[in-house]
């Protein structure tokens, strides 16, 4: 049986190996290992180092905090990757702590710690592990009934990437799940701490960087109309109607997305928090008007704590995995023909996006239906 230490050592070794390999590939090959976004973060950090706004870097759409953290990149090029790797390992740590709380096998954490998608993303310099770490630690402290810590971490996670706001209803309900009253002391405390920190950070950075900060970090994600091909069911419709009615179709994605997230928060949270948040993540991703491979890490991070609470056979899990991989590979096949071979295969990509949507929908429904009702268990302070 692999122990916790062996699992962590294996996770560290594979990440350090890929970090070194990535540096080597970047220096020797035309095709770079490092994610393009990493260069964006680094360039923004350089602007900050020069006393300028990180938003001078075109396509930098993150909090200035990220640029601040990565300032040492200009002295140690892989500094940021090290930070993201540490966050990756902290995700593993909190997954293990959560599994311990539920008396589940710690080995489930290997579905994240030794997941190629997870270690590939952090070693390529994607910052998602930072948000994942903040989110998992929020869940842990919520489970431990530590409202202050949970509130601060949740406020930070929404500040870093706006998407964890989708869990706000579920967290709000979970904080005092024994109570039926909408407004309770603990709920208000959690809301004031997390919301207060979030708003305070917005205020501080708005004072420093002005409108540019608000627009690039948050508003852009709401008004974004990306007409380029992506996994979203809506990409082709948005492209074809870009010049006349794309806003209507944007709403077509937004309304069911948020209606379902609120519906699940209200009816599922108290019975199984983990299944609810992974379901919300699925809904957010598949109903989003833009969907890229980067989004998949959001639910992969949650899988280790969700899987033990779902009554599905091993065979069913394998079928789910195969369905997901095949539908994604099918999309990538057509994406390659359009992007790299310049073939006009927009309809085929839309069909592939539809099949990917259906496969994700089926997986989501299976997860919801097979979720266990988890007895209320809040650890003592």
């Amino acid at each position, binding site marked *: 049986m692999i122990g916790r230490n062996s699992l962590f050592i294996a996770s560290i070794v594979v990440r350090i190996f890929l970090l070194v390999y990535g540096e080597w590939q970047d220096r020797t090959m035309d095709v770079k290992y490092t994610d393009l976004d990493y260069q964006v973060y680094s360039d923004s950090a350089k602007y900050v180092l020069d006393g300028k706004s990180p938003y001078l870097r075109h*396509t930098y759409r993150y909090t200035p905090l990220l640029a601040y953290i990565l300032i040492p990149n200009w002295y140690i090029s892989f500094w940021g990757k090290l930070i993201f790797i540490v966050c990756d390992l902290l995700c593993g740590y909190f997954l293990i702590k959560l599994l311990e709380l539920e008396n589940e096998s710690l080995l489930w954490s290997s579905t994240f710690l030794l997941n190629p998608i997870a270690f590939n993303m952090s070693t390529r310099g994607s910052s998602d592990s930072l948000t994942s770490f903040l989110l998992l630690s929020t869940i842990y402290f919520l489970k431990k009934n530590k409202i202050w810590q949970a509130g601060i971490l949740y406020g930070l996670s929404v500040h870093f990437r706006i998407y964890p706001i989708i869990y706000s209803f579920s967290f709000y309900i979970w904080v005092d799940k024994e109570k039926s009253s909408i407004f309770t002391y603990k709920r208000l405390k959690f809301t004031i701490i997390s919301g207060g920190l979030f708003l305070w950070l917005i205020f501080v950075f708005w004072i420093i960087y002005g409108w540019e900060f608000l627009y690039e970090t948050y508003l852009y994600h709401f008004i974004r109309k990306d007409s380029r091909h992506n996994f979203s069911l809506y990409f082709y419709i948005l492209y074809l109607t*870009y010049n006349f009615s794309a806003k209507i179709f944007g709403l*077509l994605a937004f309304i069911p997305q948020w209606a379902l997230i609120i519906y*699940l928060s209200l009816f599922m949270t108290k019975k199984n928090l983990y299944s609810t948040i992974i379901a919300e993540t699925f809904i957010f991703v598949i*109903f989003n008007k833009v969907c890229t491979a980067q989004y998949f890490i959001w639910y992969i991070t949650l899988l280790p704590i969700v899987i033990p609470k779902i009554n599905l056979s091993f065979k069913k899990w394998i079928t789910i995995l195969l369905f997901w991989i095949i539908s994604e590979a099918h999309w990538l096949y057509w994406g390659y023909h359009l*992007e790299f071979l310049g*073939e006009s295969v927009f309809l085929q990509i839309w069909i592939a996006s*539809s099949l990917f949507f259906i496969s994700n929908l089926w997986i989501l429904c299976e997860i919801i239906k097979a979720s266990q009702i988890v007895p209320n268990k809040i650890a003592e302070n």
Partner: protein
Amino acid sequence: MNIIVFISPLLIITLSQNIITFDNSVLSFSRELIGIGFTKQLYTKISLKNPSEKAFITLIEPVPYTWFVDQEEVPDYLNPKFSSLIDIELPSSHSTNHTFTINLEITGDYEFTYPIHMRYNDPTYDVPYKMIKLPGPQIKYKENQIFTVNDEFMAEIPVGLTKHIPIVVMGTILLEIIAVFSIILAANKFTHHIIPK
């Protein structure tokens, strides 16, 4: 109509122009557009006729609204200067023409490459490819002479078809409705589980 759709890619391949050249008494210029997807490479070679001469050359590069150059991808050793920010995410219908300069001090032959990208162009009703042009640059030689490369590249770009709108709209809405009901039904099944004591 179907025959036109079928042969249009063949016509485009025939019409595509991937190399442009310019030649006069002081320099020769050749440029090749390499690649078949949305991202292409512009390979350029400039040769001074007098091999012992050292000259300042500025290339004034036009970037039509149908294309974009990501200023972060142009190598620093070309000393690029962008007169305005090029938004790399807009489709052609919302973009404008841009220019930037490449500033070089060269002796003899000089070669370089930088990437250029085709923007998503407006869909057509039923022709799956469009031809888009990329003009050659103006070459400023020793501050006082300007030569214009009159050749231009012709490249084909795949575009979406508006005749697909009915099927895509209906298909998307239908899938959305099925999805919403499936999720509500699944959640309903879950919430009616009996809580274990």
